[in-house]
Every structure is written in C-alpha cells, then in structure tokens.
C-alpha cells in the first residue's frame, strides 16, 4: 500500500505543484525518485512528529497541499493536540498518511500497535477519517480528498485485501453480501479478508466501510431492522455505526487490554478471535441465538 501511496502522490504531483511530501524518516526509499525530481517538495524532516503536523499546517496556510507520512501511533496519538488545533481548529488542510495499522508491527509490541487512531480522530470537527482496505480504495480516496481543504487521515496497512468493494466514493459504504437471516455484519479495512472468508457460505448481510468519518448513515439505516455485528481490529467503527440510533448491535473486536503478544499480524488476530475461525464462530453463535438484545 505504501507503494501505491507513492505512485498516486507522484501522479498527482505531476499535475499539482502545491503538493509537498513530509516524511518522519519512514518509507524514505519509496520516495527516492520523487525527492530527486522535486527536491523542494520533498522533506524527510526528522523524527519529531508533532512538529511535522504543525509545519504541515503552516504549509497548508499558504495554499500548499502537504502529505505527512510516518508510523500511525506516533502521528496520531502523540500528535493529537497538533491535529486538533493546528489542523482542525485552524482549518489548515493537511493530509496525514500513516503506516503500521492495528497490528501490522505485530512483533514490535504494544508501543507500535495502533487501534485508537480512528476512534480519536473521529472526535475532531472537520476531520476526514479513512481506512482504505485495498490499494484501489486508497488510490481513489487520495485523489478525491487530498486537495479539498479539510484535514484528512489515510490509514495505510502493509496487509491490504485485494477484494472488489465496488465503486469507491468518499463517505459511502458498500453492500458486499445480502442474506435473508436477521444479521448484518459491518466491517472496515483490511480485516475484510478474514470476515468475507469466514462468512462466505453463511446467510448474512455484509456491509463494508473505507470511510469512518463521515460514516454512511443511510446505508446502516437500511439494515437497521436486523441485528448488527461490528467486526473490526480497531476502535472507531463501532462508535461510528452507533451514530445511527436504535440499533440492536453487538461488537466483535478489541477489549480493554493491551495485546502483549508478538508474532505476526495473523497470529495476533488469532489471539484476539479476529482470524477466520474466530470470526466464523462468533457469527455462527449469533445466528444460533434467538433474537435478543445485547
């Protein structure tokens, strides 16, 4: 996905001289050609994330279109106030693009795991929050949102899915599966792969989101008569879905504890019940239950 990010930003930069790339000493190799071609529009600025955000605000103030890229927890949790004030309150439209989604840096442990970013950034006025699950989604969202003047968050993963989620439009979810049973699954981002595989032969609805703010209220409301199960490897989607009132909703995802295991993304998903088997077991359990409130 980082390669796609570089490719799209390079294509955009050929047309738009306002684009400036700022790195926090991450993914530098991706931008070797970009930096040689446009040295005044490329800055591997240093490992000082709050200042990367503030500087990008100053660039945006004068009409430039910055992309700030580094590892997710450091650019979001560490920089929350810079994002809140320098970007959102000031309405300086910078693009924050992170890598290391959820448990991508599995073996690095809790210091590098990132699961609050989507939830906390959703709370900030004017912020656009996106979790593209595939390279195709990323490309479409980057192109449509980078220059609109709002602060935008693009959460990249090194483990994207490669599924066709239909036409990609900012703020719109997709119906990937329609069933007849009283259960709708809602998911977002790369974990779709596990969810879709787990329920391939099950009679359920499956909704998918790449945009968590704004969430597609209309789509959710269409399925509000069914029970709902949010399946996500981060916080944020469940809270977004709950903006629609009156849902009968369950959650399958993270709990109130650090994931202190290491290993691989998939081994951590297994530990959390977010592997194919864990997700399937949860869905089957709900399908076997009589209709009840959570």
């Amino acid at each position, binding site marked *: 996905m980082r390669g796609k990010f570089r490719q799209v930003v390079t294509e955009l930069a050929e047309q738009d001289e306002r684009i400036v790339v700022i790195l926090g000493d991450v993914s530098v190799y991706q931008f070797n050609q970009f930096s040689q071609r446009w040295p005044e529009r490329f800055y591997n*600025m240093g490992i*000082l994330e709050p*200042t990367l955000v*503030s500087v990008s*605000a100053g660039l945006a103030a*004068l009409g430039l279109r910055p992309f700030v890229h580094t590892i997710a927890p450091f650019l979001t949790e560490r920089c929350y106030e810079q994002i809140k*004030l*320098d970007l959102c309150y000031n309405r300086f439209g910078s693009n924050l693009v992170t890598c290391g989604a959820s448990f991508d840096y599995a073996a690095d442990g809790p210091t590098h795991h990132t699961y609050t970013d989507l939830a906390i950034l959703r709370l900030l006025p004017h912020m656009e929050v996106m979790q593209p699950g595939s390279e195709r989604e990323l490309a479409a969202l980057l192109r449509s949102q980078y220059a609109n003047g709002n602060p935008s968050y693009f959460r990249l993963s090194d483990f994207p899915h490669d599924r066709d989620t239909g036409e990609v439009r900012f703020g719109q979810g997709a119906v990937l599966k329609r069933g007849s049973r009283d259960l709708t699954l809602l998911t977002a981002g790369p974990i779709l792969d596990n969810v879709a595989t787990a329920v391939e032969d099950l009679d359920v609805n499956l909704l998918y989101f790449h945009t968590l703010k704004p969430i597609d209220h209309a789509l959710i409301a269409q399925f509000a008569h069914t029970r709902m199960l949010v399946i996500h490897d981060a916080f944020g989607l469940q809270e977004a879905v709950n903006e629609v009132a009156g849902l009968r909703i369950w959650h399958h995802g993270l709990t109130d504890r650090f994931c202190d295991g290491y290993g691989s993304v998939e081994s951590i998903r297994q530990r959390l019940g977010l592997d194919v088997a864990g997700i399937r077991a949860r869905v089957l359990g709900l399908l076997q239950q009589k209709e009840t409130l959570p």
Partner: protein
Amino acid sequence: MNETCLKIRADILSIAHASGRGHIPTCFSIVESLYAVYSTMNHRPTEPQWPGRDLFVLSKGHAALGYYCNLAAFGYFPAEQVRAFGDADSLFGCHGDRFKVPGVEASTGSLGHGVGIAVGMALAGQIQRSGRRVITLVGDGEANEGTVWEAVLVAVDQKLSRFTLLYDHNNSQRRCLQIPNPGERFRAFGCEVTEVDGHDLAQLTDALQRTTDRPHVIVANTIKGFGCQTLCDDVFAWHRRSPDAATLARLMEELHAG
C-alpha cells in the same frame, strides 16, 4: 515611553477592567515587541489578506489582548470593538481566532503550537520563493514546551533565513522551569541571535531589520507588567486578574507617570 505604546497599555488596562478578563503583565511585556514588528513588516491593515504581506504568529496566544490592542493601534479595527473581549458573542476571545479577528494568521492558545505553524509558513515562503518574512513571538514559559525546540531544529535544518523568532524573555518561569541564557541555547541550535532590551524600540527595530543567512532569534529582555510598578511587584497575583475601578485609576496613574 512611545505614545502609541502608552496608548496600547492604557487600552489593555481599560479593556481588562471592562471585561473582567486579561493577562495584563504578559501583555505589557510584549507591547514594544509587537509595535516594532508591525512597524517593520510588510502589511496592509485595511487589506489583511493582502497576498504580499509578511506573516506574524503570536505563539504565546494568551497575550491576545495586547495583540488586539496593537492591531487596533495599526488600524485593523477600532480599539472600541475589543471592549467585548471574552464576551459570549465577541469576535475577540481570550485567545485569538483567525476566522474572527482581522490580522490573526493562526489561532493559537495551547503553548508550543504557533512556532511550528510559523516554521511551516516560512518553509512555504521558501518553496514558493515569495520572499515573505515570517515572525513568531514565543514566551519564555512557552519554551518549556519541547515543540518550540523541535520547530527551531527544523527551521535551522531548512535554512529558513526569512524566519524570525522573537523570544519574550520576561522571566515568567522564575518559580518553575527556568531557561537561563536563552540566547546561548538558540545559538547552539544554529540560529543567528540578537539580544535586545525588549522595551527599547530602536533596538527592536534594528534587530527586526537585520538580514541573516539562517533563522534569526531576537531575545527581547523584558519586564512583566512593564509600565506599572504595581503589576511588576506581584506578577503572579496579576497573571489573570482584572483591576477594579479604583485599582484601574491607580494603574493608569502609574502608567502615565512613566
């Protein structure tokens, strides 16, 4: 004291009294600094968004009242408008909002933010080859924040020769984390440093007109509450205090007595 600076201080006192709000001592320490900045930079008070303007960012945002009175003195709006300072529907909050106050380039308040934004503006000026100057005013208490020093590192690394950091060295941290010899520290970070008496307009103006090949830090040695001995004698008690009518009269008397 310069006539305009005297009037700005009188406006600060009367508005702090009328509104019941204000950070008077910290506003008083930067009156000459702000006046010198707006006397030397390119700007058009009747056309605040003039594209050719230099930019100023008040990083120590809690000195907003002093900033508003300075902008009023330069003709951005009548000082009378600022009397609604801090009122529910006022344009003039206790920290400046760039969408409400003509001339405010960035909304600030939380310390250690404006300086990074200003560095970004200066970098934009360098990318766009606009030649515009960017000046930010940072408090010495604010310099407790690590982001101030992060931003200075970036400004030096990017050789932002049109960037000026005006450092209000008013000893606000005498009961807390002090930063002795700030000029030496900024010099060690790679900045060009000029130290001035922050209440001497000639020194400030000369420093602001210096051309440097790297970021320029002007350490303005100032006195919190400068102009009123009562304020200087107890700056901590006066940090957020507003004077009642009798005290206002005494402070005005002190101010005009010089």
